[in-house]
């Protein structure tokens, strides 16, 4: 097996509970380096729980199953270690942190990762040069740097800010939780550009989305349909188009029939 085809994420028979409800009920998913996977599904199918449990969100209880990341037991790692090891989550609803400079958080974040990798930390000047270059690519206004983290950002600004952070941190595994929802077409294209720029043989990307329109711009290698807490169907790009045409009822009915 070549290095490029190494498995980055391997989830097996994962069962996860939030409160009293079992949300993920035997989910399995394998993602190799270089691949982009799209996970689609109706509301309430467990999409955000999947990204949450992989990133280590508190309040989710793993009942059984496993998840390994680059061969390590992902579920045993605290959330900050997962992040330092190259796992990035673009949040569906990025939280506001009043008074904390956006650029300050990003610098602290990148330097935490660099320290972990044994690389020298960037000073303020070096970091600013780096972030400015990325910012220009995202066509974001520089004033966003010195505002509080997500404080008073529009919905689109918040999502783009997530992609900006992703491009700075250059993760090995990027999980995007409905980053496309609520974006107009121009913002959607920018987000897609950011994701495409990150694509590389060494990385993997998991896009969680409700709609297939993002997939017009970021062409996935695999598409999975999540329903009832597990993946009920997997296929190539054409599966997304079929879903668009026939709706989720089609796959859900299929599950019931199977």
């Amino acid at each position, binding site marked *: 097996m070549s290095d490029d085809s190494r498995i980055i994420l391997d989830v097996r028979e994962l069962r996860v509970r939030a409160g009293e409800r079992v949300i993920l009920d035997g989910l399995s998913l394998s993602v190799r380096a270089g691949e982009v996977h799209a996970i689609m599904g109706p509301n309430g199918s467990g999409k955000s729980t999947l990204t949450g449990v992989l*990133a*280590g*969100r*508190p*309040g989710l209880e793993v009942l059984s199953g496993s998840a390994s990341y680059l061969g390590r037991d992902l579920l045993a790692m*605290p*959330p*900050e270690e*997962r*992040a*330092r090891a190259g796992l*990035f*989550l673009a*949040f569906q609803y*990025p*939280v506001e*942190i*009043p*008074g*904390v*400079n956006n650029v*300050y*958080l*990003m610098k*602290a*974040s990148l330097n*935490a*990762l660099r*320290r*972990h990798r044994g690389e020298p930390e960037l000073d303020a000047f070096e970091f600013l040069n780096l972030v400015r270059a990325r910012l220009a690519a995202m066509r974001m206004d520089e004033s966003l740097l010195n505002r*509080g*983290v997500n404080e008073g950002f529009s919905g689109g600004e918040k999502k783009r800010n997530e992609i900006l*952070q992703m491009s700075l*941190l250059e993760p090995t595994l990027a999980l995007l939780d409905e980053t496309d929802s609520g974006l107009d077409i121009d913002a959607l294209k920018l987000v897609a550009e950011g994701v495409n720029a990150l694509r590389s043989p060494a990385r993997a990307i998991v896009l969680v989305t409700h709609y297939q329109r993002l997939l017009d711009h970021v062409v996935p290698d695999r598409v999975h349909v999540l329903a009832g807490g597990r993946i009920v169907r997997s296929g190539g790009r054409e599966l997304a188009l079929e879903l668009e045409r026939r709706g989720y009822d089609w796959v859900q009915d299929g599950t019931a029939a199977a």
Partner: protein
Amino acid sequence: MSSRPTDLESLVARKYPHGFVTDIASDTVAPGLDEDVIRMISVKKGEPAFMLDWRLKAFRRWLRMKEPVWAHVHYPPIDFQAISYYSAPTQSGSGPKSLADVDPKLLETYDKLGIPLHERARLAGVAVDAVFDSVSVATTFKERLAEAGVTFCPFSEAVLKHPGLIERYLGSVVPIGDNFYAALNSAVFTDGSFVHVPKGVRCPMELSTYFRINASKTGQFERTLIIAEEGSHVSYLEGCTAPMRDENQLHAAVVELVALDDAEIKYSTVQNWYPGDENGVGGIYNFVTKRGDCRGRNSKISWTQVETGSAITWKYPSCILRGDGSVGEFRSVALANHRQQADTGTKMIHMGRNTRSTIISKGISAGHGQNAYRGLVKVLPGADGARNYTQCDSLLMGDRCGAHTFPYIEVANPTAVIEHEATTSKISDDQLFYCLQRGIAAEDAVNMIVNGFCRQVFRELPMEFAVEAQNLLAVSLEGAVG
């Protein structure tokens, strides 16, 4: 990277192995307070007669007063006859001889806070003069100040050298009978700071007790008086960011500021007295009266305080906006962790026309800490066009602490505009998770969030103080989350 630094509480709570035995023989009087003790203090200080009269008047008032009990704090009764009211600074015999004799844990904390070496010695109680050549440093500053005509000296020296100013201004902002602790202070204070900035002079440097060698050991009843004459400007920094070694439990200081026409006084405090251990044993009771009088037209007084220490904090730095067009500001960060209790805020008394005041209060509660904001905005009938803006934010960490807000607004002029905003928030799991997901350690994330919360206040502090204040909050909150 997150090697866990030693918990501040445990290290300041440690007993000092070298012991600080006070030399009773000559420099300390027996516990207890009566008129003879006050006469003795006045004689020891070589004070003029008016000072003794003033002290005795204060003492007689104090005898008829009762300890205030309205604050949202709880502590066992204080036995005022068990306190020794005079203990002169000694050059040797008490305290460690050099830094080598000081608890290494304490030094470690100083290091973490980035306190300069010579400052560490002073904080740890080393007899500085014997070890470091600080005198020359002080002299340099004294010369520069003298050139500008600024007087900055120990209070007791001012009583002897500038009796006219003392007699005129002492007690003119905080009268002897103002409150129980102010009356006690007026009767028994032994030293403190005096600043006089002449007409039209902009003080050439930030004045800090740090530059005044004998600022330490002025004891528990410190007295400060700052007078800014017409058109002058002065910025004064008080306190230190490191845990202060101090064996006195009760601190009852009085600070009086007087700003004449077009004068400006900026008074910044970072207070980090010993807060007691995590069970609430020990710790300083910080019962302080601070008040500024904007006596002149278009004068301005700003209070900025960062209060992280003391077992109990009871202080309300206030402004009397007497002059037309005068401006009062109060910005505060108060932290109550473990068993600490803070009842702090301000009073803005609008008397003159077109007077303005701003209040920004940031209270942080963690552990079992109890934090209360108590503030009064009062607009008198003659204060046409008075304006006040108050913002009062509380941040809770954990579910055993408390935040309380007691705003009082009394308006007797229909043209006044008063705004009050208050928020209470918790460091949310979502905020914490967001930072963790970005690879930031939990403690760093908490510090970042707390510092963001305090930003409006920190940016008012002089640069080097702001950095220390941030470090201080970090050290004070170690272990508050997780």
